[in-house]
């Protein structure tokens, strides 16, 4: 079972997504962050505590202050030994292919999910995450 981190600035979306994940019982736990910066702080805290960070991250792209790409940029700075087990799915209402391409450049990004999230989409993603090997070389 995975621990899932949801990063989205929209409360309704977070509420919905949390419910769907819990409902589908694909995750051990769900943690929600309302901004990218808060998520980064959380991760830093976890690392500081020398605990393991969540294995799955659902990341919104459009967020104020720091957007999804900003988060990815900072996340890439974390040592690979810590992040190699983490799989990221971009969760967005954007239809821009360019954003998809841009996101895939980060080695931890393995999927791109169009909003709204539903049972089918989350199951497929979790399946994909479990089957994807540790991310060292991309």
């Amino acid at each position, binding site marked *: 079972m995975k621990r899932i981190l949801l990063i989205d600035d*929209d409360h*309704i*979306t977070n509420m*919905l*997504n949390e*419910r*769907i994940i819990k*409902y589908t019982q694909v995750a051990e736990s769900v943690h929600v962050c309302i901004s990218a910066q808060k998520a980064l702080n959380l991760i830093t805290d976890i690392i500081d505590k020398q605990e393991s960070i969540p294995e799955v991250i659902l990341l919104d792209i*459009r967020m104020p202050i720091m957007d999804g790409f900003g988060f990815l940029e900072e996340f890439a700075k974390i040592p690979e030994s810590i992040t190699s087990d983490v799989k990221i799915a971009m969760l*967005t*209402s*954007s*239809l*821009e*292919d*360019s954003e998809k391409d841009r996101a895939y450049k980060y080695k931890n990004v393995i999927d791109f999910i*169009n*909003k*709204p*999230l*539903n049972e089918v989409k989350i199951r497929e993603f979790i399946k994909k995450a479990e089957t994807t090997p540790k991310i060292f070389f991309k």
Partner: protein
Amino acid sequence: MGINPEDIYANSNNLFIAVHPDDIGETKIIIAESNTNVTKYEHSFRMIKKDGTIIWIHAEGISTKQADGKYIRNGYFIDITPTKNAEIEIIDGKQKYKNILEATDEMINTVSLKGEILWANNAWKRNLNYTETELIGLKIVDVFTDDTKVGFEERLQILRVGNTIRNHSANMITKNGEIINVKGTIVPYFENGKLAGTQGFFRNVTEIKKERRERLKAETKLQRTLDNMVTGCMVLDFNWEYKYVNKAAAEQAFQKPENLIGKTMLEMYSGVEKSNVFLAYKKCMDERIPLEFEEKYVFINGEVKWFEFKVDPVEEGIFVITMDITERKIVEEKIKNNQVLLYEAQRIAKIGTWDLDIINDTLYWSNELFRIFELPPDSGIFTSTFKNYVHKDDVEELYKTFANCIINKTILDVTFRIQLLDNKIKYLHDRAEIIFNEYNEPIRVVGTIQDITKEKQAEVLLQQNEHKYQQVIENINDGLMIINLNANIIFTNNKFLEMFGLEKSDVNKLHIDDIISPEYREKLSELRKKRFAGEKVADFFEYIGLCKDGTKRWFEVLVTNTYENNNIIGSQSIIRDINIRKEAEYKLESQNFELKKINSELDNFVYSTSHDLRSPLMSLMGLIDLCISIEDVPADLQQYFSLMKNCIYRVDDTIKEILVYSHNSRKYIGSEKINIKQILNAKLENIKSININKKIDLYININEHIDFYSDKQRVAAIINCLLANSYTYYRDNETTPYIKFNFSATEKEGKIIVEDNGEGIEQNKIDKIFEMFYRNSEKSVGSGLGLYNCKEIVNKLGGSIKITSEIGKGSTFAVCIPNCK
């Protein structure tokens, strides 16, 4: 007498009519005397007969006085003509001899037996300077010199016995003491049979002797001269015998004079009578005419010599002068060869020579000069006719120049035109020197004339061309500049000056840095150094130039090196003011930047808007899904939720189409390898999720043997549009609805064919379906932008879209997109 007796009776004076006019005066005087004195008269006079003959009359008579005072003459006339004539003859004869004796140059005298001079003629007096009185009575022996006195007695003895002494030479002393040589004969003379004295007939031979002595002396000298002369001299007599041969003449024949003299030519040289030389000698000998000729001799030793012969007839035979002219001949030959070369050179160079003798007004032209004037050689030319050939516009100038040359004693150097008979015009260059005599009078002019027509024509052409180029250079809109290796500007056209606000006078002291903005100087100097070193450097560049008033402008320059004899001597630049263009470029750049910014902002706006619009929509969708998933939801609520979802899809659809439209109209067209299968799957996933209730069979055929390159997003939009369209317009009553997707690519294009068995489109509406916001069917749930966007994208990619459709049967969309491989 032809006088009537009656006339004489009437008046005796009438007799005087017939008296010779020379005698009439005397006769009248005698008659008058006789009358006066009443004496007898006796008188001879001449009378003229009526036929003109003259007769002598001897008249004797006496006059007696009558009582009436008249005189009566009684007398007679005798015709004494024969007597008188004889008398005159004797007197004349004596006088004649005397005259002869006195006039002759022969010294004649008579000497008495005592040796005294009795008589001597004028010649004696003249030669010895004595007067007659001094000579008469002088002893003959006293005029002799001492050596002549020797043998005087013996000679006298010879004479006494009556013999004549002939060819006697004697020396006499003149009164002045000079000695004269005389030569002559002495004869005895007799009177009444007795020896009375001697008569001498001498000739003064002093001069002759002197002459002879001189001649002898001269002859000896001449002989010696002849002997020693380089010129050969010889005398041949009529028998061809060598009478005289000088050393030179002998040596010319490899002989000695003594071996030749006395021999004949025929003896010495057998077969000589057939030679040209002999024949010439013979001609002179026979015809007695002087001859001159030259002859070549080839000697046995192989030596070749030329001789000049001058043959003169002389008393003894012929006199021959031979001169070795081999040297001269060689020189002449050389000159001749040189002359040929000169003529040839003149012909080739079209140079003619002329020679004007001013004093005699004769003009000589070389053959080439005649050729230049296109006249037959030796056709004759005169100063007067020459003028006719000179072009009428040049005559005055030419003669003025010539006159100035004479005045200033300078060399004539002039170019003028001539007009030939056929009106052809030639340009001639004339260079001549005027020769003056000691009184500074021009006497002769020697000159050369060169035909420079071709050069002149070329020059004229060149001038015209130069003028043309000049015009081009001045009229082109580009600045031209030439610099030397020191980068000093040495030439510019007016445009250049205009560009930099310079004056023509500024150019002389202008360095290239003066027209370059400081920030470019180092860079351009570097380039220039390399270029002058022959390195290949940028020859076309832009730089900021510096005008005279300090303003800076952008210029574009094309530079090429200039060469002289393959050496780089500088460079030339074509300069164009590109300030306006540059400004425009800047403007464009900034405008572009602005535009990009606007575009980007717009893009951002659309993106943000679409995202911001969709986010809540998607949240709403999620919430509805949540509602539906709640257990025990009443059936009617279930239906309402479903309708809500449809509404949300429609809004979302419209947002998406707007995004596509915005994207297509603003985004650059990219080119990348297209993975059709990937795109198709992504789009199908999306479409299927919307049309979840529609069971449509999909037949996909993708041929990817040839790589297809295009704009990925746009291609994806096309595929999405076509598939969505087919899904939307499926027929409910169709038992086996299908969509066939077909893709194939060639090197030229990619072809997408989407075929369905859906509703189909009415023929008359096919064109309308691509219109913006056109919705053909009540089934249409979209924005009415789908096919419009599709068509726009295809157009943007330079492709085409084709529809075949039948209402109630289905439609086929065929899209062709160029392969941008």
